[in-house]
């Protein structure tokens, strides 16, 4: 079976696949060598990078993982009707991927051992499971199709211990585990209700969900972190990046093209991108030198195939694992949220001081349900106990109960999570002031907005030290 597949791929190489810059005589040899490792790439007739956010198929005509080794391309995995979404283990010995044994089967998560090409199924189920990523500590994350679109889950490498990470009425698909341990994922903005692709962050236990940046408005997806810690992503027609110093994205002077996302940084600091010059063309792999982007804003072709998109490149090279997130969730069936000053927002000052805050959620049918209100202190603080692992949304109300400002989307708090917000949509650039919020001077008992009778009786505050 495997021999047949390889023969077919070789024939394809001769007749159809153009390996640019891989032959020894190619002027692009140095650039290819600059990549510094074998590559794995997803080859597909049609790639729809944002389809999963709509709950649709990204590879409607199938896909196949290819291993690019010393200029030769060969199928990476035998015996599968479709394979995609490669993710190399930290030690470089195994590859996680999404695969279908039969065309009629859903996508599942598999693991391939590179040395033997043996495969084993990691995650099974009746629904699609896609985009696996390695977590430290022998776990993985991936997105599973649900009635509410793709939701991110984590599991052990043997498929046990499945833990849901995202809880919202819209799809979320993981992009990468950042070095600080957080999961970078894409979803629609406003979160849970919008359709503009946007990038978000969440800890490995599903806590702390937030926007990566709050300069929303432009579709962005396919984020990857560079060695500098910058995160490069695509708008489709352009590339841009998030940097640590800035609260807004920074344009990358990249050539005009359509980018699929998932930029890979080579050892020389060049970027391996999946791009195409027009929608009618196919995505190929190109090198882009960001250090000389202004003087030489060109894409250097590396690998292309005239009848296939080449997307999702990864390097076959060991890498350092990201940080593990030590979950500090309490053994509760609810969560606590403290707003330090709900009046603060990137949306500007409120004309009227908020008197109270209303918490809404969604029922199983997607209908909005109010879970009650809590007072807002004169300094803008409030402290509430909220329903966990469910979509929630806050609305600030005036003293007559009229809405002053409402969160644009939905978010969630994990069971046992206890977090604070500096304001309402203030952006990650806003650090808390060092003051005790007035609500904590009045009471340290949160207003119960769980809508669950006796929610806080499950277990009192965690005892013990810290």
């Amino acid at each position, binding site marked *: 079976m495997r021999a047949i597949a390889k023969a077919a791929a070789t024939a394809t190489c001769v007749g159809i696949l153009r390996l640019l810059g891989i032959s020894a005589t190619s002027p692009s040899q140095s650039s290819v060598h600059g990549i510094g490792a074998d590559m794995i790439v997803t080859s597909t007739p049609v790639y729809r990078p944002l389809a999963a956010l709509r709950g649709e198929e990204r590879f409607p005509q199938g896909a196949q993982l290819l291993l690019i080794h010393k200029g030769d391309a060969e199928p990476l995995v035998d015996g599968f009707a479709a394979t995609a979404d490669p993710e190399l283990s930290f030690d470089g010995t195994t590859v996680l991927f999404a695969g279908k044994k039969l065309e009629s089967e859903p996508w599942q998560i598999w693991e391939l051992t590179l040395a033997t090409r043996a495969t084993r199924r990691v995650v099974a189920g009746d629904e699609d499971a896609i985009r696996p990523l390695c977590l430290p500590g022998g776990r993985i994350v991936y997105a599973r199709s649900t009635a509410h679109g793709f939701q991110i889950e984590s599991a052990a490498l043997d498929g046990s211990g499945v833990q849901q990470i995202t809880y919202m009425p819209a799809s979320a698909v993981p992009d990468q585990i950042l070095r*600080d341990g957080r999961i970078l994922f894409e979803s629609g903005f406003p979160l849970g209700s919008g359709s503009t692709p946007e990038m978000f962050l969440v800890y490995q236990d599903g806590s702390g969900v937030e926007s990566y940046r709050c300069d929303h408005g432009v579709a962005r997806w396919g984020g990857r972190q560079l060695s500098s810690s910058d995160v490069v992503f695509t708008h489709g027609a352009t590339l841009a990046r998030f940097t640590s110093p800035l609260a807004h994205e920074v344009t990358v002077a990249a050539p005009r093209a359509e980018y699929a996302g998932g930029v890979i940084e080579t050892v020389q600091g060049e970027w391996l991108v999946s791009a195409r010059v027009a929608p009618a063309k196919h995505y190929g792999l190109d090198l882009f030198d960001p250090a000389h982007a202004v003087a030489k804003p060109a894409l250097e072709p590396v690998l292309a195939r005239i009848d296939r998109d080449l997307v999702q490149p990864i390097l076959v090279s060991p890498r350092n694992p990201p940080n593990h997130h030590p979950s500090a969730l309490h053994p509760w069936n609810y969560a606590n949220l*403290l707003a330090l000053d709900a009046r603060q927002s990137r949306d500007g000052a409120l004309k009227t001081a908020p008197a109270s805050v209303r918490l809404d959620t969604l029922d199983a049918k997607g209908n909005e349900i109010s879970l009650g209100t809590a007072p807002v202190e004169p300094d803008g603080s409030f402290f509430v106990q909220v329903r966990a692992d469910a979509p929630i949304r806050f609305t600030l109300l005036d003293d007559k109960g009229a809405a002053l400002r409402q969160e644009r989307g939905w978010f969630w708090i994990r069971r046992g999570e206890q977090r604070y917000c*500096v304001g309402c949509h203030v952006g990650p650039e806003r650090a*808390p002031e060092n003051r005790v919020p007035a609500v*904590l001077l009045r009471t340290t008992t949160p207003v119960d907005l769980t809508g669950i009778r006796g929610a806080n009786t499950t277990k009192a505050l965690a005892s013990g030290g810290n």
Partner: protein
Amino acid sequence: MKDRMQGRARATLIAPVAAILSFAAVLALAHQCARPARAATLSGQDDFVDYDSPLELLLSPDGARLYVLCQQSEEVRVLDASTFAVIASIAVGRVPRGIALSSSGDRLYVTNSWDDTLSVIDTRKLAVIATWPVGFEPSGVVAEGAGMRVYVANRISNDIAVLDAATGTDLKRLLAGRGASYLALSLDGSRIYATHIFPNPPPLRTGMENRTPPESEITVIDTARAVVVNRILLHAIAGVFHVALSPDGRLGVVAELHPKNLVPLAHLEHGGAFADTLTLFGADVGPPVEIPLDELERYASQPFGVAIAPDKSRIYVTSGGSEIVTVIDVPRMLRFVRARPHAQPVSFATDLAASANYVVTRIPVGRNPRGLLLTPDGRRLFVANRLDDTISVIDTRANRVASTIKLAGPTQISALRRGEQTFYTARYSFQGQIGCSSCHIDSTFDGLEWDLEPDGFGRDIVDNRLIEDIKGTEPYKWNGSNPNIPTECGPRTEMYFWRSQTYDDRTLTDLTLYIRSLPSRPNRWRLRGGELTPAQARGLAIFTRTVDKFSKPIPEGNRCSFCHSGPKGTSQKSFDVGTRKPTDNSGLLDTPQLSNIALTAPYLHDGSARTLEEIWTIYNPSDKHGRTNDLTKDELNDLIEYLRTR
């Protein structure tokens, strides 16, 4: 060693000026006797390793010599500033902390923080020619330009000693901030600016002292009259380190910590624990301006040293925890400030995007970078990497480390040294925001109360405790829930402080070894040989009494000496002493050790007592915290006098 310190402490208090020289000679002799053990560090193999630990740097006026203050080897290393060859090593006192040159360059002054002395070095002879007593825990030092006086910041005395530069006579003391530590002289010599590392005590009793932002100050001294002429308020700051002044005298800058101790420590992202900031002051900025060094996902943890380029084009700041030097473009920084007119002091500490307006770059250097030094032409910047025994030489035009000078310390890294490196770095916390030393400044404490998350928001507010000499005082934490240091520093720190994967087993073992090795600093109130003053003796009698003044027996559990028993003043058990607040989850509190308790205000588990006196005058109405309400004010003072000797 303690005996020697006791003797010295007493002599410092009572020695007449005429006896200074002979006193200094005794000190020097004692110092030599004590030297083999003074800075020895015990490695995992029980070998003694004497590291250099460079802390501060100076250049001779002619630029030929580089003076390196080596804290652990307790010497001044004199290097050729061109070749970096060692010219001399001059032994000084215990745990030296500050160094200064006279304006002529013929005298070098070194503060010996554990000896409470100042070493005077003749730079031609390269020898100590005098050792002068100063205040408790001398730290920063400057010699005023006219050569008449030397100023010494005394960390425990909370003051600045004004010394006669010829004789060392202690002319006067100027009240400074709590934990007075660093000094800088303006270029024209007219002003000295002093900072302090612990927040000032709240001046008024409000009942909310432990829930209000800390306050610090820059103490400004007129050198002509040797008087304090201004105190520049640093609102919400706790932990102020070096101060630098521009040559034109129009811009001053201090490196400082801006804690978030009043906000529940629920997560670290977005500056949840600290802002690492500078405060700018002077005519260039008008009212003081606080600017952050941090970014959205990257921090400049524990800023310490600061220097301004001679042409005022750049500011350089070391960050001991992040192990970097931050380079600031001064014109851009001033544009940022001036674009935001302010009639009052202003802070941008909550804006993590602000630093993009003025930070040029962040240059990685060695472990725990501290003091830094610019050459007069501004071309080279020397950085003392305290826990690497190296000096980074930065090319300021290229903003990169051009070379690294290895000092002559040992090459092997002991377990203790690794533990110390772990203690001082911020690399283990989420996005590198904090390290152990963020709250345990110089391996002590920070004088703050924190709202830790797992006890509930706004609940169980806890005072940060001194970590010296804590071996044998377990369990730890005020609720006594942490049975040992590995538990405290391992999984609990990982979950609730660092919020990130932390140490492997070896690193945690090394860190534990380091923390358990921290000795108690010399007690400044204890006399030689353990003798007690009459007041202290009366206090001891009260501490150990079994009947009150009315001859009524005091129940065992209500005697001072019952809970505060043992050599370190703790029975290692928990008791309810009646200090529980409505926001406390329990009234049972671990009995804190009494080691050096005089230094560690505020007091009680939540820091609600500003002074030792307030423990009993305000917070012991029912005599649950020992039988004390039968005492007169004088008797309570006696008790406190005794406690200060612990």
